[in-house]
């Protein structure tokens, strides 16, 4: 038997075969979905980014006023030079950038300290009340990030900085120093008390997954406890600290609420608030330059951190999800420590809420005596002398429409985010190992490193004009939905991937064998099997969207006002009591949402963060 001659089929047949193969590749489920997602993400992420950069390097209509020979639309370095190397650069860029870095670094480190210590106490010690500490730790994160900032202002506000006196000043009768009332220190503290939840969750997950045998082995080898902590435990939780760092740092860099409440009144600008002021007066190009700088700085910081610690990332899976046998004994101090920790946590939650509530009952700001008590800000009729004539929040149609907008926005965003998560998870997991899948995964990660305010800025430039078939969306509710969904893409991809990994590929293949097409497979197999992930993703997005401010502050208009932006508006107008009443309503809604999360099996904050 000889080797059979390999016959080369005619060219036309080979082309036909290649064409058929291509069509089959293109229409296979994972490729088709990946390509659709790719187009969508290019449209929602890359094109807006490109448009933003483009705006910074072209003359705008209004530049004609400052530069007589400017031709709108023409390429120019004008905005970059103005921001980076001119008389105003210090004020517009360098000082705010420095402030952003100080605030973000400070808040991240402080949050890391608080979160890690709490995590260690809860997971690795015999401190009583660990369950309670665990539950309390997530609550500050659920509340809007600038809650504590607002409460801080009620407590420490001072006449020196031109405000009305806060509670402290009222009680002690002397002015509170400005550094305590406004600026970096209060911003750092109030942000850290919000974001420590990240570190708490990441580090406790890491501590839980470390096989305590590793530590016991070291102890048997004669290592001291501090040495074990330093040489064994710390390197193993490093990846968790890194994840927490990246998440917190990029969030604080882009956060608007806290710095706006505690920085802007004393002209302590950070990049986020500076972007806002530029955009507010129509200097889009200048604002976008700042946004680009902010994005670059965030990416570079994350990159450096990843390089520094990146090589150790491989520790992450060590030991599997073993339970912890090794628990540090705290001795006689354990009860005192527990009491201290719980008091701290309760204060961080209850004190701000109490202060905010107290303030809403004070008719004239700065006077905290009982004679000043009023319900006007809650249920009063419009009075031209109070709060610029706004009626109390509970009879104010504006508040109702904002609340409805908030709920509506959160529901719609949560739905699309969760849906997108399943589809992203499918495309990424089914295509594992292909370049297409990797590309989808990488692009889906981009919004993660773009600070909220910058992401919002990106969307101004994108949708202020008609783009292809899409009408100008600026000022519409749809734009708020789109930006919120887009910003959530990294989270939805992560939770989608982990949900999809739980669904063995054979389950879908069995459907293929049975003759089900893509739609039938999704409807009858994939959606039902990932529904727990869908629900938890939905609820988590619902809450985070409800209290999101930085992302949408540049995009809301009076018609699309949500509760979060409404509080800012009142704050900026000096109607503090109204602002505080609104934020309390917002918190109430969020807490109700969180309660619902707890009711659902499988839905939890931790899961939603992709852990």
């Amino acid at each position: 038997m000889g080797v059979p001659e390999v016959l080369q089929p005619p060219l036309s047949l080979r082309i036909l075969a290649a064409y058929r193969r291509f069509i089959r590749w293109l229409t296979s489920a994972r490729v088709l979905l990946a390509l659709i997602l790719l187009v969508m993400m290019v449209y929602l992420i890359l094109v807006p980014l490109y448009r933003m950069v483009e705006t910074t390097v072209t003359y705008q209509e209004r530049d004609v006023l400052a530069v007589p020979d400017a031709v709108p639309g023409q390429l120019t370095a004008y905005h970059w030079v103005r921001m980076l190397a001119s008389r105003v650069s210090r004020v517009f860029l360098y000082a705010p950038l420095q402030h952003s870095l100080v605030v973000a670094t400070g808040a991240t480190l402080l949050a890391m300290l608080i979160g890690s210590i709490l995590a260690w106490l809860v997971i690795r010690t015999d401190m009583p009340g660990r369950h309670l500490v665990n539950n309390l730790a997530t609550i500050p994160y659920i509340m809007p990030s600038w809650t504590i900032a607002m409460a801080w202002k009620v407590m420490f506000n001072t006449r020196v900085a031109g405000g009305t006196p806060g509670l402290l000043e009222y009680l002690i009768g002397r002015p509170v120093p400005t550094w305590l009332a406004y600026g970096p220190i209060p911003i750092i503290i109030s942000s850290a008390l919000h974001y420590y939840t990240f570190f708490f969750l990441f580090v406790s997950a890491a501590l839980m997954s470390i096989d305590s045998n590793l530590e016991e082995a070291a102890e048997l080898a004669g290592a001291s406890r501090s040495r074990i902590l330093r040489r064994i435990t710390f390197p193993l939780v490093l990846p968790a600290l890194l994840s927490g760092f990246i998440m917190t740092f990029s969030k604080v860099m882009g956060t608007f609420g806290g710095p706006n409440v505690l920085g802007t009144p004393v002209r302590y600008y950070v990049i986020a608030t500076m972007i806002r002021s530029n955009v507010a007066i129509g200097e889009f190009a200048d604002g976008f330059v700042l946004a680009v700088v902010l994005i670059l700085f965030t990416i570079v910081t994350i990159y450096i951190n990843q390089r520094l610690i990146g090589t150790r990332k491989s520790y992450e899976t060590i030991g599997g999800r073993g339970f912890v046998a090794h628990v540090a004994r705290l001795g006689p101090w354990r009860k005192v420590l527990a009491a201290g920790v719980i008091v701290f946590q309760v204060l961080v939650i209850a004190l701000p809420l109490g202060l905010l509530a107290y303030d809403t009952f004070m008719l004239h700001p700065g006077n905290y005596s009982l004679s000043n008590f009023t319900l006007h800000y809650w249920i009063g009729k419009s009075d031209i002398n109070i709060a610029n004539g706004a009626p109390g929040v509970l009879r104010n149609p504006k508040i109702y429409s904002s609340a409805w907008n908030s709920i509506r926005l959160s529901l719609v965003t949560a739905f699309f985010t969760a849906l997108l998560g399943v589809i992203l998870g499918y495309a990424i997991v089914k295509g594992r190992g292909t370049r297409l899948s990797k590309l989808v995964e990488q692009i889906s990660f981009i919004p993660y490193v773009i600070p909220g305010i910058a992401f919002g800025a990106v969307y101004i430039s994108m949708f202020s004009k008609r783009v292809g078939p899409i009408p100008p969306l600026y000022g519409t509710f749809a734009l708020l939905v789109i930006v919120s969904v887009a910003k959530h893409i990294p989270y939805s991809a992560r939770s989608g991937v982990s949900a999809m990994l739980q669904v063995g590929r054979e389950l879908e293949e069995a459907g293929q064998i049975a003759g089900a097409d893509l739609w039938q497979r999704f409807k009858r197999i994939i959606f039902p099997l990932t529904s727990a992930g869908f629900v938890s993703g939905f609820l988590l997005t619902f809450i985070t969207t409800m209290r999101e401010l930085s992302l949408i502050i540049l995009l809301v208009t009076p018609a699309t006002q949500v509760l979060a932006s409404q509080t800012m508006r009142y704050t900026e107008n000096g109607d503090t009591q109204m602002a505080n009443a609104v934020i309390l309503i917002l918190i109430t809604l969020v807490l109700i949402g969180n309660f619902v999360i707890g009711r659902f099996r499988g839905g939890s904050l931790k899961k939603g963060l992709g852990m």
Partner: protein
Amino acid sequence: MGTTITIKNLTKRFGDVVAVNNVSLTIEAETFITLLGPSGCGKTTLLRCVAGLEDPDEGEIYIGDRLVFSRARGISVPAGQRDIGLVFQNYALWPHMTVYKNMSFALEIRKLPKDEIDKRVKESLAEVKMLGYENRYPREMSGGQQQRIALARMLAYRPKVFLMDEPLSNLDARLRMDMRAELKRLHYVAGATTIYVTHDQVEALTMSSLIAVMKDGVLQQVDTPDRVYRCPSNLFVADFIGNPKVNLLEGVVDGQGCVDLGEFKVAMDTQGVEGKVVLAIRPEDIAAYTEPTPGAVKFTVYSVLPSGADSIIVARTGEREVTIRVPGISPIKMDDSVWLKFDPQMINLYDGATGNLVAVRKV
């Protein structure tokens, strides 16, 4: 109702790994063929190519007269239209559906009328003796029961081809024995052409009408169980099939009708064979005597392993070690002397360099 399956020059690569390498195989209608080979040899991949879950890189597949895959022509019929059924190793029952729903799924997609669906589901459940479990969820059943439902799910839409990927490997030894008999019976009744993947040679030998042995993606031998056992076409197959393993003794053909093994010589028909060879003889084909016997070689017993129905004896002479199987509990003890006779009629000779069969046993 079975159908032929023809595989021509099929190759499937994953990156640098050639999982299936130029495999050609013709399977007659109603055959029960087993793909047998060590882990990672490409059995599952070959099965998935036939099922339509993988697109091969080269070759063609026909099911009956229908071309379901051709690289050269760019054709690949979707899995659901190939008229095949597949039982997965882990069963892949849909956990959110009841047994009934699991089974009616494919029938609903084929838009059968309700009463026909009901009838078929009941029939198939009866065939695997699982009537009455319609409303259970997969997690509410034992592994063996899930296994039966996985089979029933395949039977319900009556495909012409059954594909099974190690369907019994997750069952305990006892259940596996029972299910082998059931599966063989099911195949007999349904008459569907069956491709069955396993790395368990006992399963392959007991159940199939044909065994295809694979190694590193390449087909080594396709033959009846009997032929595969008695006349393995190369050293790999010889070594892989049989428990205890075949005795493989390296030696040289001395040109005088003997194979010279160093310690002793075995006289046999070595016509057309020369140079280095490997002599293969099954443990049960070696005759053992406790007294000196003409033509037998003296060995010393190294170890004795009785297992009820028979005993395995490991014996040595010099550097040579052979394994023998004798019926019943043997009176032979360690360090006893035994005289072994190598019947030339039962010996296969393999080329020392290529490992291919060069002289076949006579009986």
